[in-house]
């Protein structure tokens, strides 16, 4: 177990340390997501019925596009000075590298979401600080980060990586984003755990499929 877990944690910690040093991603991503939330708040009639209908979409649009900014940066940092090759030279299997990068991206996304949710609650006057929503966010973010880690590894070797990543990622990640939007709406409408079950199950199923497939493909993507 430690052959797997220790290097995964080491890679994730390295990514956290790099982000703490530069603070480039957190700042730009938070600004982008916050701006999206504020802009949408002026676009719709602020009645409770309309807000409950559109707010889940606004929330996940902000998370999704902010996430893409973060994914791009996660592998761009690895390309500088050839450190991606350094990582590939480490005596661990390629899936360990994948889960290490995934954990770093997942932590980054979760911190970003936890910082944004209170703003979202204030702007849209919605009770979003709910354990059901937090669990759902964590599950959906795990799957989204899983696909994001794979596709950002693909996109980083292309010339127009900033454009390639959303083009590749969004069609594949859309089932998770749609499920996240639908289940967020269910939470905001006061659905019970039982009513949430179908959507949570769907998100969890996508997570399992995406993580397994991505971890298998990751090595082939990075080797020349």
């Amino acid at each position, binding site marked *: 177990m430690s052959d797997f877990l220790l290097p995964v944690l080491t890679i994730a910690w390295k990514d956290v340390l790099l982000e703490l040093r530069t603070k480039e991603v957190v700042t730009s991503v938070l600004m982008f997501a916050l701006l999206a939330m504020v802009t949408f708040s002026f676009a719709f009639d602020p009645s409770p019925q309309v807000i409950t209908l559109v707010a889940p979409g606004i929330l996940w649009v902000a998370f999704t596009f902010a996430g893409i900014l973060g994914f791009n940066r996660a592998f761009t940092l690895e390309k*500088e000075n050839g450190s991606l090759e350094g990582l590939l030279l*480490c005596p661990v299997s390629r899936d360990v590298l994948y889960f290490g990068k995934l954990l770093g991206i997942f932590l980054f996304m979760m911190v970003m979401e936890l910082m944004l949710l209170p703003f979202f609650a204030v702007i849209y006057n919605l009770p979003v600080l709910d354990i059901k929503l937090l669990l759902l966010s964590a599950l959906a973010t795990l799957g989204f980060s899983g696909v994001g880690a794979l596709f950002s590894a693909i996109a980083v070797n292309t010339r127009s990586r900033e454009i390639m990543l959303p083009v590749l990622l969004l069609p594949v990640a859309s089932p998770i984003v749609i499920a996240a939007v639908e289940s967020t709406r269910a939470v905001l409408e006061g659905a019970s755990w039982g009513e949430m079950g179908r959507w949570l199950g769907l998100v969890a199923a996508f997570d399992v499929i995406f993580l397994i497939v991505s971890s298998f493909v990751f090595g082939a993507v990075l080797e020349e």
Partner: protein
Amino acid sequence: MSSATIAQPSAIQVKGLYKSYGAGPVLHNLDLDVGWGERLVLFGGNGSGKTTLVKTLATLARPDAGQVQIAGWDCRRQGAMLRRSIGVVGHQPLLYEELTGYENLRFYGRMYRVPQLDERIQLLAEMVGVAQQLQARVRTLSHGMQKRLSLARALLHDPPVLLLDEPEAGLDQKALERLDDVLASKEGHPRAVLMTTHNVERGLALADRVAILARGRIAYQAEAKGLDVAAFRQTYNSYLGAAQ
């Protein structure tokens, strides 16, 4: 070095290696053998496939066909074990610019699960001459200092096989002397070295055996001992001319 490693007759064994990128083959039915304790210096012109060979040996590039074994580990089936047996210095330092030298070495040391890591980092930093710069961020260091750190990174886990792709690029005379010391030191076991270079004098001085890579295969090889520099340079130039 594990007993399984020592049991292998060759440190590096390559048979019938093919590797291509799109248009044509870069490596073409290449055979290569490097024994334990042997230093093979590989010469070759630009585009002859030296870097591709090093990348393939290091499992950074997947061979199209052929067999690659290092310390007995197969590059396709036992990549992680193979990587534990090698230290690689390439054109780039393979370091994180925003981390300090110490943090970089600590990160790689943990990935390689190096015991008594702090002592090892200190020892290597002194060996390659970066002990004073360990706490500085890599991006603030000169290219030469980054290259020295890169050498320390490659030696961190005391690998029995060293793959060096033009390691002298960007190093000053003092650093070159340290590199020679490192290559000469055995650290308690016979280390195999495969080094690529364009510098004929340095290559011959360091090598036990020299080889020339041309048109994707080993076109010439000879024992370095007693080899005349001028005669070898002429041979090398003839292969460079033929390749163009």
